[in-house]
């Protein structure tokens, strides 16, 4: 649905995006991550035809953005990181204005606007002035605006920035709902745990280039990180340490407080071997949890914090 080939954007001597190859399949949620100034917003603005690439190609729904700008804009909904609003318009009027901008017929506008208000849970704010809305409400209004012409692709730049925890959870639920509706979503965020929960794939960009692109499962081998499991047993942990250390699949066992941290050899799976060994050895196992690689950790390991 979204594809770029050797996409490059220079601002004078500054290379904002460099030979970026990106592919996002239909119906996917793609998390776009990177330090400030890495080129995320520039890439997004190129995709929504607000910037022309210096070189390379970009396609939305098979359409070349350089040649079919108007058609691309009908297929894409873009929500910038900072959304300006018109002071003197009410919520309904604001959305109706954008419906008109997308050429939606007058007699259909009311129903469409009511639909997106319902979807974004803004029905109660229908007649409220736009500038009286809270930050969270304005973000939702931005999303409602983006949805007004029923685009296939949503490009959302930091949609959760500045939102309180409740608003962030609601935004996340809304994105899941949109995915269920079949939308392809490209979303950038600095709140990495948010992306971790909702994204099918992520791309980590730095200095205008991808340092990683793939699923969360693909990051671990990319970083050369072995699987780890946290274990807690009842009573003295020493026998458990002895039993697990003897296993050929296990590289090392460390005691951290009440817990044991078990590191597997590279490429080994964690399937049940620990539980089977401990239970058969007469140890009372009370806790066993594979350690998840956090996106924050992957981000820190993959990026160097280079700023233009």
């Amino acid at each position: 649905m979204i594809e770029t080939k050797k996409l490059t954007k220079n601002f004078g001597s500054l290379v904002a995006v460099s030979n970026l190859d990106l592919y996002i399949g239909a119906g996917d949620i793609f998390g776009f991550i990177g330090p400030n100034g890495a080129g995320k917003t520039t890439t997004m603005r190129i995709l929504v035809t607000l910037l022309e690439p210096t070189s390379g190609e970009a396609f939305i729904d098979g359409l070349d953005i350089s040649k079919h700008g108007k058609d691309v804009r009908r297929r894409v909904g873009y929500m910038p990181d900072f959304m300006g609003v018109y002071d003197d318009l009410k919520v309904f009027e604001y959305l109706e204005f954008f419906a008109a901008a997308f050429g939606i017929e007058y007699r259909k506008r009311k129903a469409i606007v009511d639909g997106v208000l319902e979807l974004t849970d803004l029905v109660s704010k229908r007649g409220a002035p736009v500038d009286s809305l809270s930050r969270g409400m304005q973000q939702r209004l931005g999303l409602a605006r983006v949805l007004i012409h029923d685009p296939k692709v949503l490009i959302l730049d930091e949609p959760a920035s500045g939102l309180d925890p409740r608003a962030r959870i609601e935004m996340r639920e809304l994105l899941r709902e949109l995915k269920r509706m079949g939308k392809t979503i490209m979303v950038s965020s600095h709140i990495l745990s948010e992306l971790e929960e909702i994204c099918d794939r992520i791309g980590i960009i730095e200095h205008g280039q991808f340092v990683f692109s793939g699923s969360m499962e693909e990051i671990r081998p990319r970083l050369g990180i072995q699987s780890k499991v946290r274990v807690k047993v009842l009573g003295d942990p020493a026998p458990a340490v002895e039993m697990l250390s003897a296993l050929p699949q296990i590289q090392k066992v460390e005691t951290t407080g009440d817990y044991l941290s078990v590191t597997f050899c590279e490429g080994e799976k964690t399937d049940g071997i620990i539980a089977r060994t401990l239970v058969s050895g007469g140890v009372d196992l009370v806790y066993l949890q594979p350690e998840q690689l956090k996106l924050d950790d992957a981000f820190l390991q993959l990026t160097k914090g280079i700023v233009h």
Partner: protein
Amino acid sequence: MRGDTTYGSFMQKVPAINLFQCLNPLRLAGPIFDKELRVASRRRRLYVLRFGYVALLVLLFLRLWFLMLRSGQAGGGVFQVSRLGELGKGIVLAVLWLQFLSGQILAAVLLSDAIGAEVRQRTLDVLFVTPIRSLQIVMGKLLSKLLQLVSLLAISLPVLAVVRVFGGVPWGSVIAGLCVTLSASLFGGALSLLLSISSRHFYHAVLTVGLSFIVIWGLVPLVLGHLASAQCIAGTTVTFLLGLTNPFVVMADLTRGILTGVGGMGLSAAWPRHCLFLLGSAGILLAWSDWRVRRIALRVAPLRVPETTTEAGARHWGAPRAIRPVTGSPIVWKERCRPLF
């Protein structure tokens, strides 16, 4: 919360535009026109302007009326009727000049923040991800503000119609005056709109329009007059050029025509040509605005990129400057660092 929405079922394919819709003049302005009118009706400024204009009109009318009364009641019926005609001329001229001056000033003020506000509020890029074209933004802004202006100027039309009963002023002169006023206002508005694209504050655009008017309508005729007196250029050529380009000259000539009953410099019949010239000039300014709006929308993008790293920034700032230490009051230091203009 949102699970049970009917949103998707409402979505329809955007219909193709038929020939009738293409010919609709409002389509040129698009939804911007509608939005601007809606927003304007909620701004107190519009009502203050209307009140101020009507108050000025009434004061002018009363002033002329009392001047007439003070000049004496003596004389026969024929004399009194002729005095009414003179009063009619005075009122018509006063209203025409009021419209002419206020029209240009108001057009410049109303359009001075037209595009600048969009840039400042960061709404321009949101508009550009819709199928709206930059021409629609420019025309939508211009036509909506001009409609406000015309509705303001139209307040004085009943006065002109009533005063016409007194006699002494031909309809042709009134219409000519209105046309010159409208074309000059359109030109001023188009210039203000163009300047608003790059102005950070509305008053920058207003001041620049004022300065431009002083140069175009004031200094250029002076220079041409000087050249004519020095016989560097023929007097008829100067008259022709001024009649073509300068609305003040055309209005002055119309005034002379109304007062004396004959054409002053022989330009009275040339006002349609002058109006066409101003309309054409306004068209060029609007085309330029259309081009610049698109460019400025795209330039909003690299806001986070330090300006000195961009080509435009490098041109603007030249070579990177040394870091200046803060000396004395930090507020004074900061203000000193800001460019004067």
